[in-house]
């Protein structure tokens, strides 16, 4: 029993790490540009499929390194072509626009790679089990958690320590002043969007290795990321991280006792948080 709970808790935390990785990208974009990027799940799928295409040529590690960067470039192009045009307008329009993009990306991936799950093989030395007693501790899972931790640490390092990060944080608080101080806000938002999409692409490669790759992978992962942001509080990146881990762990533990409720439980958590703290666990009142 203990092992079962541990297994599912760990599993939940891994899933939660995914949610957090995706939600952090969403949050970055939302905080600086005020856009809820509904197409984020689509970019996640693009990341996965690009890795799938690249793997025969450059191997798993090469794909892991290159695919998220390519995804980010596609994201930057999408921002320039479409998303930039709805900045400053009613959030209605950015939502509709990214809804449309999400439809097109999902349908496009289905058109190119087919509707069925494509095989996505991770190196065999990663998929073997590390310990006989804790059978669930496969190398890939541990590796994934390590990579998510590294990515999140790098993100917070960039935001906290570099000039770019400082500008992003300042822009989140007061974009107009940042602009007046001589910083090109258009480029800043563009780069920031790319950074968010990079995280989506990375999550896509990792998710493909764990869940298998199919066109709907994005839309099945985006809702929990929304919940992660709401639970953590809009506007707070640490909150988003916490929210992701919390809902992942909760759904993992509930899986043990009542498997069919594992997806519903995260919404129950969201309802509770909204009742007790309407602006999320770490959110500030009045930002959104």
């Amino acid at each position, binding site marked *: 029993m203990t092992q079962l709970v541990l297994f599912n808790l760990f599993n939940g935390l891994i899933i939660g790490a995914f949610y957090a990785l995706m939600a952090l990208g969403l949050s970055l974009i*939302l905080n600086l540009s*005020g856009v*809820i990027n509904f197409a984020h799940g689509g970019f996640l799928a693009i990341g996965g499929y690009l890795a799938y295409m690249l793997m025969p040529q450059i191997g798993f590690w090469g794909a892991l390194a290159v695919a998220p960067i390519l995804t980010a470039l596609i994201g930057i192009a999408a921002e320039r072509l*479409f998303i930039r*045009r*709805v900045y400053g*307008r*009613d*959030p*209605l*329009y950015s*939502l*509709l*626009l990214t*809804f*449309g*993009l*999400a*439809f*097109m990306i*999902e*349908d*496009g991936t*289905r*058109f190119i790679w087919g509707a069925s799950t494509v095989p996505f093989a991770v190196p065999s030395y990663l998929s073997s089990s590390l310990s006989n007693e804790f059978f669930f501790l496969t190398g890939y899972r541990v590796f994934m958690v390590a990579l998510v931790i590294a990515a999140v640490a790098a993100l917070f390092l960039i935001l906290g320590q570099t000039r770019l990060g400082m500008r992003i944080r300042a822009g989140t608080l007061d974009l107009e002043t940042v602009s007046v101080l001589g910083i090109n806000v258009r480029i800043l938002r563009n780069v920031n969007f790319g950074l968010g999409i990079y995280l989506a692409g990375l999550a896509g490669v990792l998710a493909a290795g764990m869940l298998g790759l199919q066109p709907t992978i994005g*839309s099945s992962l985006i*809702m929990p990321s*929304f*919940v992660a*942001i*709401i639970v953590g509080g*809009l506007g707070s990146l640490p909150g988003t991280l916490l929210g992701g881990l919390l809902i992942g762990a909760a759904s993992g533990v509930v899986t043990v006792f009542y498997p*069919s*409720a594992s*997806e*519903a439980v995260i*919404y129950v958590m*969201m*309802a509770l948080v*909204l*009742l007790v703290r*309407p602006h999320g666990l770490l959110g500030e009142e009045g930002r*959104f």
Partner: protein
Amino acid sequence: MRLLDRRVANAVILLLLLTAPYWINAVGGYTALGSRVLVLALAATSLNFLLGFTGVLSFGHAAYFGLGVYGAGLTIKYLYANTLAGMAVGVAVGTLAAAIVGVMIVRLRGVYFAMVTIAFGQVFYYIAYQWNSVTGGDDGLSGWRRVPISLGFTTVDILGSDKALYYLILICFLVSVAVMAALLASPFGRTLLAVRENERRARFLGIPVDRHIWLSWMVSCFFVSLAGTLYALLNNFADPHDLRWDQSGDFVIMAVLGGMRSFWGPLLGAVIFVVLQDYVSSQTENWMSFIGLLFVLVVLFFPRGVLGIIGRKTAS
């Protein structure tokens, strides 16, 4: 003059809707398509009560629409094979769920409100999807049919006759729309407009803004679940996708496409959307891309919608 114009427009719309089953085949449609337009137009008009006239952005209306669908379907299948009873249960379930969710979200605004409505919308989708033994899961709820309505002196055969069903839906549509129009013309409706235009000022005037938004949300969700029950009757089927976020997006795009500042905008948007979807999905498997493209084009080039553009041209 403008009042006269509006009356003429209303009369023309009413005449077109009343005679639709008699000319729709001649223009390449079919009666069920007309019914579908009306049902989705009712949903979009209800959403627009909130979106266009209260200024609150809900992206989760499919949840209450879908609860209407499932409420009606489950009632007719398991409890009591009576069309009106099914409709009553569907509307009650949808409205009750909206009341509970409404309490939690009424303090949120803008992006936050939109996100939370989307997320809450998914709860019901997961329930319908997971609760296989009752709802049929991913395959949807089938194995039931709408039942002819017995009025005592006569029986309305909505099962056998497409036209009878169309007129039942039309009556529901017209009554609902009339109620919403009357509400908007009342002091309550004017207050909603004040909230939309300037919430802070409305608050300073002593208007209980949260309560008005909650009430507007309830009106909107009540009629959207009514539309859901009609949709269940129309299809003799409940599809979990009726509850999903993409359905919510469809409602919003109908309202925006037609013109969300105009009362009849969502109706026009529904006509365009349904006809387009019907045509494209008969031509290509990749209709989802075209719908997505429609979203993008509307946002980039027609944010005011068809009626918004016409209204602007005539005003200038």
